[in-house]
């Protein structure tokens, strides 16, 4: 019931907006930490779409989660500029240090790949709970993770 009420509020905010589905999904994810399957049909009804169309959009975009991430999300860039500055090695060592593989969650911590944060002139780059990190090192990232999980 709680999902339905909160969803109704979100849908009301976007009523009549051109191409409202992505903004709605962003708000739903911000509210629930993921896009719950229970939200598909109400969203579809509000936008006069089929449930399949909503599901298709949710599954297309990397940002939309079907289950909540850990309380803390660490994103590390895999793209070329970061690779040129040891990004692949950084990821491997971070996986060992945190005991979690890329794309997985362990306890409170989710480790994910990101494809470019636009910090290519201060590579390698990462993001810890929204905080951007340039010239990233394992030590710096470990310290930040310890700080946010403390």
């Amino acid at each position, binding site marked *: 019931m709680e999902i339905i009420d909160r969803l109704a509020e979100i849908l009301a905010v976007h009523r009549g907006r051109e191409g409202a589905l992505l903004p709605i999904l962003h708000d739903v994810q911000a509210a629930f930490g993921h896009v719950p399957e229970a939200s598909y049909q109400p969203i579809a009804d509000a936008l006069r779409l089929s449930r399949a169309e909503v599901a298709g959009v949710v599954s297309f975009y990397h940002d939309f989660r079907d289950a909540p991430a850990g309380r803390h999300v660490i994103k590390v860039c895999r793209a070329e500029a970061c*690779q040129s500055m040891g990004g692949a090695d950084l990821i491997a060592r971070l996986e060992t240090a945190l005991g979690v593989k890329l794309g997985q969650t362990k306890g409170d911590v989710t480790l994910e790949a990101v494809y470019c944060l636009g910090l290519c002139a201060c590579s390698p780059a990462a993001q810890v709970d929204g905080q951007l990190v340039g010239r990233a090192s394992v030590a710096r990232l470990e310290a930040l993770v310890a700080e946010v999980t403390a």
Partner: protein
Amino acid sequence: MKIWVPGDAAAKACGADDVVAAIASAAGLRGREVTIIRNGTRGMVWLEPLVEIEIDGLRHGFGPMTPEDVPALFEDGPHPKALGPVEDIPFFARQSRLTFARCGRNDPLSLADYEAAEGWLGLRRALEIGASATIEEITASGLRGRGGAGFPTGIKWKTVADANAAQKYIVCNADEGDSGSFADRMLMEGDPFCLIEGMAIAALAVGATKGFVYIRSEYPDAIRVFETAIASARDAGIIGPALLGQGPRFDLEVRVGAGAYICGEETSLLNSLEGKRGMVRAKPPLPALEGAFGKPTVMNNVLSLAAVPWIMAHGGAAYAAFGLGRSRGTIPIQIAGNVAHGGLFETGFGLTLGELVNDIGGGTASGRPFKAVQVGGPLGAYHGAEDFDLPICYEAFAEQGGLVGHAGFVVHDETADMLALARYAMEFCAIESCGKCTPCRIGAVRGMETLDRIAAGDAQAIALLQDLCEIMEKGSLCAMGGFTPYPVRSAIRLFPNEFTPLREAAE
């Protein structure tokens, strides 16, 4: 005492906020009154956080700063991080900053600062001379799409202007997903009113009343700054019911992407904007005629639109005076990766690749020998030192089987594993393909597998990979599958030995 510390995402990622806190506390301890201004970045990213202090009317730079370096700013004697007048630093002094003229100088959200630095001059002139003369001016400037395709902006605008429709749109492509590119982000964070002005001029020229800026979700700072800028331009009556209080209606809205690289492709972006899966559309119809929500739409990159205010203020001929051959004007080059002096360098087309990597970039960051530079993002070719004479312009790179793209240059030193980079190109395509056409969707996966075979010593798989690359290049619907072969083939051409390791060892 006036102190500037950039609020740009790259500066913050390198610790600018900690430096600001240290300045506030050091000033407090000494009872010194300081005004801290969060400016945009000058683009000299290797010097970030780059603090600026006005000394005898000139802004002096200090960087890269750490909190520990801050107390010395308040003490007499030379500072260990002093760089002298910031605009005299050779990397900065050698540029022709037209599009980025204001970026890094001011508080990006100050309307007064914007107005005082030629702000709204271009829009005023467009209002004065009218739509068709504005399009003529843009055509005369020779401006071509800075997103990478290089299509003449004036022709695109004319097509939309000539289309008959009750509703037209301006869509700004700010889905800057190419590794090595950050100019769009830097401009939106450092001079957002410039992009608003460019979009307003485009709207005026083609008769559009609504604009969308599609910004990728990986750029939260750019989204925040740009949305704030839109709100204050609206409150000041610059956009909204009447442009500058006297022109037609024009309003703007930010739309946020959702982590799909393919949405940087214009037709995919339009589908995403409409709330659909970001699938590529076949062309025709051209977006200029049937774009956003089926209406005539100007779809331009951030850098194309941000070049417009300068062109309108100074004239198309002045812009066209920069450049080389059919590549007119300036190009905001982003030099990144394993390079000593990484950042944004705006200059007329024609600088050579070697000048960029060695003179401007200062060689590799690691100090090891240069190996290759990838130009134009993940779909661009690798170039070796043998291409150092190549002038940076659309034509020269196309002739070499490459592209300038969005002008991101990613430098690699001798430790780069070219087979791994080629495999990554295929893997990235497999992850990001929209799935509409077979050569891209299936080809990328087969490409990864074939490169794995080559890595395992199956040298015969190289011919197969070449075949696959040809099919992807010629048979894909858009540049995603069509250009993914560029980095793969160029890596094989430049470093054939890295693709036949085991076989050679056996012989």
